[in-house]
C-alpha cells in the first residue's frame, strides 16, 4: 500500500455526549449515526458532567470529542478545562446544539467548532475527518 501514500489509519474514535442535563437526544442520535456511517467508531456517553467528559475521553482513548450543548457555554468551557487538566488538551472538541449566538466566539476562540441546529451533516462529518487527520482519501480507507 505504501507506494500509494500513507497507510490507512485505524478508524478514529469519537466520544459523543451531552454536557447538559436536558435529555434531548434527537440531534445526538442523528449526528452519531452520520459519524458511524462515515467510518468513525462512536462512543455514546449520554449526559456527562464536565469531569466525566474528561475521564471518559481518557478511558476510551478517543481522538475527538463531540459535545451536544443544551445549556450555557460556561459548562462547556469547564469540560474543556477538565480535559486540559487531565492531559487531554490535544484532543480536539467540537460542539453542536443550542449554543446562544453571542456565546459562539467564546468557543471558536478556543479552537472549538460550533454546529448550531440546522447544520449540515456533511459539514459535521468533514470537520470530524479534518480534526482527526482522516481527511485524505487514503486515510479514509
Amino acid at each position: 500500500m505504501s507506494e500509494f501514500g500513507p497507510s490507512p489509519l485505524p478508524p478514529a474514535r469519537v466520544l459523543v455526549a451531552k454536557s447538559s442535563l436536558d435529555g434531548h437526544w434527537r440531534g445526538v442520535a442523528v449526528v452519531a449515526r452520520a459519524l458511524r456511517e462515515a467510518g468513525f467508531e462512536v462512543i455514546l456517553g449520554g449526559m456527562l458532567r464536565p469531569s466525566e467528559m474528561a475521564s471518559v475521553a481518557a478511558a476510551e482513548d478517543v481522538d475527538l470529542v463531540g459535545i451536544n450543548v443544551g445549556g450555557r457555554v460556561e459548562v462547556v468551557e469547564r469540560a474543556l478545562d477538565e480535559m486540559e487538566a487531565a492531559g487531554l488538551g490535544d484532543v480536539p472538541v467540537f460542539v453542536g446544539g443550542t449554543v446562544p449566538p453571542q456565546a459562539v466566539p467564546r468557543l471558536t476562540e478556543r479552537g472549538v467548532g460550533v454546529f448550531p441546529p440546522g447544520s449540515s451533516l456533511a459539514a459535521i462529518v468533514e470537520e470530524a475527518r479534518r480534526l482527526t487527520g482522516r481527511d485524505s482519501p487514503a486515510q479514509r480507507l
Partner: protein
Amino acid sequence: MIEHQPETTSGIPLKLLYGPDDVPRDIREALGAPPGRAPYLRGAYPRMYRDRPWRIFQLSGYGNPEDMNERLKFLLFEAGETGIIIKHDRMTDDHLYDVDHPEIVERREDVGLTGTVTVGLRDYETILSDLPLDSIYAKPGGGVPQSAVYTLPSYWSVATRRGIPLEKLAGTGQSDFFLTYLGCPTKEQIPPEAAIRFNLDLIEWCSERMPRWVPVSIAGYNAADSGLSAHQELGAVMANAVQYLDMIAARGKVDVERLAHRIGGVNFRVSMEVFEDAAKLRAARKMWSDLLGQRYGITDEKARQMRIHVVTAGSAMTYQEPFNNIVRGTLMALFSVLGGTQSLGVSGYDEAMSIPSDHAHLMSIRIQQILQNEINLREIADPLGGSYYVESLTGELEQRGWEFFDRIQDRGGFLAVLDDGFLLECAEENNQRIAVGMESGERAIVGVNTHTIDDPIMEVEAFEGRSGAETWEMAMERLSDLRRTRHGRGAVEALRNLEEVCRNDSVNAIPAFMEAVSADASIGEIGSVLRETFGDWQVPISV
C-alpha cells in the same frame, strides 16, 4: 419519466385534487354530528370560540422564584394571558435534585436557564405571591411523573395555607410519560411502573377532592417532537389512555365513566405539516370518543369529550434567521385553531437558542391575539369541515392511528413499548428520515438549507438570564436557610412516612407528599426517597 410522489411528513401520499370519493364513509357520518356532540369530529363544544376563545397558554419561567413571580404577574396582569404555566428548571425539577447535588454543582451555570429553580415549598410561596389562586387556571409544572408528586402538592399546599379550599382550585397537572421515557430521558428516574402508580394516585385524589383539576394530561406533543409521526402520536396517546383506564378499572375505586372526562385533556403538537396536523386534532377527538364508547361502553357523550391543548412544534423553529419563526408560529397557531384546540402555546421565535426572551414571549401572545381579534376566526366552528382533502387526511390518520395502537397493544401495551424501546426506535427511524431529507434538500427549510444569506440583519441574541452561576448561588443560600430554619424532626418524620407509603401501593401516596412538602422537606430529599425506594430506569436503547 416517473413522477415524484409527494407525501406528508408522516408518509400519507398526496394527490393533486381531492373529491367526494376521498372522504371515508364513517367520517361522512361523523360530519353529521354538530360540534359539542359525539364523536366530536367538528369540535368539543357546541358554540366553540363564540362562547369562549381558546386559552392563551404560554410556557414561561426562568431564574429564581422572584423572577418567576414577576414574569407571571406581567403575563397575567399586563400582557393579557388567561392562565399561568410555571416552567421549572429541568435539571433540578425533573430529576428531583437539590442544587448541591454533584450533577448540578458541575453544571451550576445552567441552573435556572430552563425554568425556575425551587428548593422547597417556601419557593412556591414566593412564585405564587400576589396571584389570585382561587380564580386563575394554572399548570404549576410537574411535566414528569416523578416531579409532579412534588410540584402539584406544593402548589396545592400554598393554596390551602392561604385558606383556599382544594375544590376551588382550577388547573391541570401533566405527569406525561412521553417526555422523559421517550423524548428527553433524565439521567435518573423511577421506572414507568412506579410512575404510573403515582399518576393513578393523582387521578383518584383529584376525582375525590378537586372537581376543577385535570390530574394528568397525556402529552402527544412530546411523542411527536421526539420523532413519532402524526398517526403514531395518535395511536400512542390512545394506548396511554387505555393503560390508565384499565388500571383504574382494576383498582376499582373510581368509576371509569366518571374518570374518563378527567383524563380527556390532551396535549398535541402542531408542526409545519399544518393540514395534516389540523386533521390530526379532528381525528383525535373522534378516536377518543370511539375508544371510550366501544372499549369501555361509555354512553354518556360528555364523558367521551376530548379537550385539546396545542403547543406549536419547537423543532420547527430554526436557529438561523429566527424572525422567520414568527411566520412559522403564526401558521402553526392558525391551523391549531382550525383544528379546534381549546388552548394554545406558540413556541418562541428564539426556541432553537434559548427559552423565550421577553420579546419572543410577547410575540407568541400577540400572534394569538391577532388571530383572536383581527380575522373573524372565532365566529366559525370547524371551518375545515367538509374539505375533501382535510376529511381524507382525517380518515387516513384515524385508520393508521388505530393500526399503530394495535401494534402497541400486541407488544404488551403502553408501558411495555416504553420499556422495550419500540417507541424510541420508531422515533429514531423517523428522525433519520427527516435528517436525510434535510441533507438532500428534499425537505426545504428557508434560511437553513435554501434561500440562505449571511447577513447579521436577521440575527438575534439568545436570552441568557442572570450571568454566571448567580441563580445557583442564590438557590444554594435558600437551601441552606431551609435546612437551618425548618423544624428538623418534622421533616425527617415526614420523609420517613413518605418512604413507608411509597413501599405500600395499596394506599394513596398524595397525602404523604403533601405532608413532606409542608414539613419543608427539600426537593432533593423527596427525590432521594423515590430513588432509594424504586431504583433507576434504564433507557432501553443507547441514544
